[in-house]
């Protein structure tokens, strides 16, 4: 195929219908990402605190579970949520099966980041607060956690950037997100393949680079 033809099909590939089709894919990617990020932030924090607090038995089991989940392939978890759960009577839509899988996996990752953040807070902060009359919970939520979160902004945002990229794995259960919709477009006209990949790359880059800019902003504001 000549360069002239490639150029022509590139321009053609960026037509209104294809762009709109991909835009809806982007909305899926973003909504699955945002919901999973919010949920995994909450669950990850809870698990991180539980493991840090060394509650007899309980913390140990959570810690083992976190280790197991962290070492599984994400695609396995996605397939499990969508294909296996119905066999035990749990039926999730593609959308919610994706969110369940990402939340499950990311919570384990986030919990380790949060635990590391808590451990990085000076021990004197705990002692100062406890000696000042604050309870364990007050010390954790008012003094230690705010400082821990400040320390973990960069790894946390990296983790969430990974999550946005990993939503493309949900193509495997036909979630109509960006990657999937890209495949549909070039599946109909293989001349669109290169332009579509370029478009997908640009969209993922813009979203994720935006996230890392936000991260730098937050770091600056918290400093």
């Amino acid at each position: 195929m000549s360069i002239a033809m490639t150029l022509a099909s590139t321009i053609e590939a960026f037509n209104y219908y294809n762009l709109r089709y991909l835009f809806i894919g982007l909305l899926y990617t973003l909504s699955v990402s945002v919901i999973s990020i919010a949920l995994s932030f909450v669950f990850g924090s809870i698990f991180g605190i539980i493991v840090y607090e060394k509650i007899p038995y309980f913390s140990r089991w959570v810690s083992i579970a976190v280790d197991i989940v962290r070492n599984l392939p994400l695609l396995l978890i996605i397939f499990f949520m969508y294909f296996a759960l119905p066999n035990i009577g749990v039926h999730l839509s593609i959308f919610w099966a994706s969110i369940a899988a990402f939340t499950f996996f990311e919570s384990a990752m986030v919990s380790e980041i949060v635990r590391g953040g808590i451990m990085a807070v000076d021990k004197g902060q705990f002692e100062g607060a406890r000696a000042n009359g604050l309870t364990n919970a007050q010390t954790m939520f008012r003094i230690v956690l705010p400082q821990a979160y400040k320390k973990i902004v960069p790894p946390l945002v990296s983790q969430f950037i990974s999550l946005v990229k990993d939503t493309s794995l949900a193509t495997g259960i036909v979630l109509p997100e960006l990657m999937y919709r890209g495949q549909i477009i070039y599946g109909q006209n293989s001349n669109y393949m290169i332009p579509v990949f370029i478009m997908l790359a640009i969209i993922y880059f813009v979203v994720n680079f935006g996230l890392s800019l936000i991260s730098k902003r937050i770091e600056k504001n918290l400093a």
Partner: protein
Amino acid sequence: MTEKMIQFQNVEKYYGDFHALKDINIDINAGETVVLIGPSGSGKSTLIRTINGLEDINSGKLIVDGYDLASPQTDINKIRKNVGMVFQHFNLYENKSTLENIMLAPRIVLKRDEKENHDIAMSLLEKVGLADKSANMPSELSGGQKQRVAIARSLAMQPKALLFDEPTSALDPEMIGDVLDVMRDIAKDSNMTMLVVTHEMNFAKAVADRVVFMADGQILEDSKTEDFFKKPKSERAQQFISQIEHH
């Protein structure tokens, strides 16, 4: 006044194999100022940290403000409400302003009225000479200023007793005087019980009612201040004093 604020009876403390506190027996009366001295590693900090439960004891009896610390029924937070502590490294809340550092515990632990809380905090900041720093973050203060804020934070709880764990050891020499001045003022208040771990002998001479000397986890001497500095009974204490004073 003979009400006993702090009582140690045959207290033992181990860190693994290391015997940190050996058969500690000491009473500290309400309103008394006691200075605890001794070479490093002698157990002074460990002893003072057992009083508000930052360190557990292994055996013996420790009664603080009427509460038995070894008893599982004792709510340690009740003791901590009435027993403040000032640390060598200040331990101010890094994420809170100076004023918030002082107001936080009275607000959430004592549920003190917000306006009253603010007034008390500001008057304490004035007392330690830092009213103009109320909006600053701890990272913007010098060591001496941090320590004075830490003292104000402890005082805001209106405790019965204050524990000082080497409050001037981490400070530049020119900062020490301001902190000791504040502590001197507190010691003058006859209602406040103070236990101070320090190497500042002049401070001890000036404000302490009693001096306790520790070495190797034991209390070797517990004397009236004048008696102690005139002639310490134990040889270890004599050595220690002469070392420090010829320094």
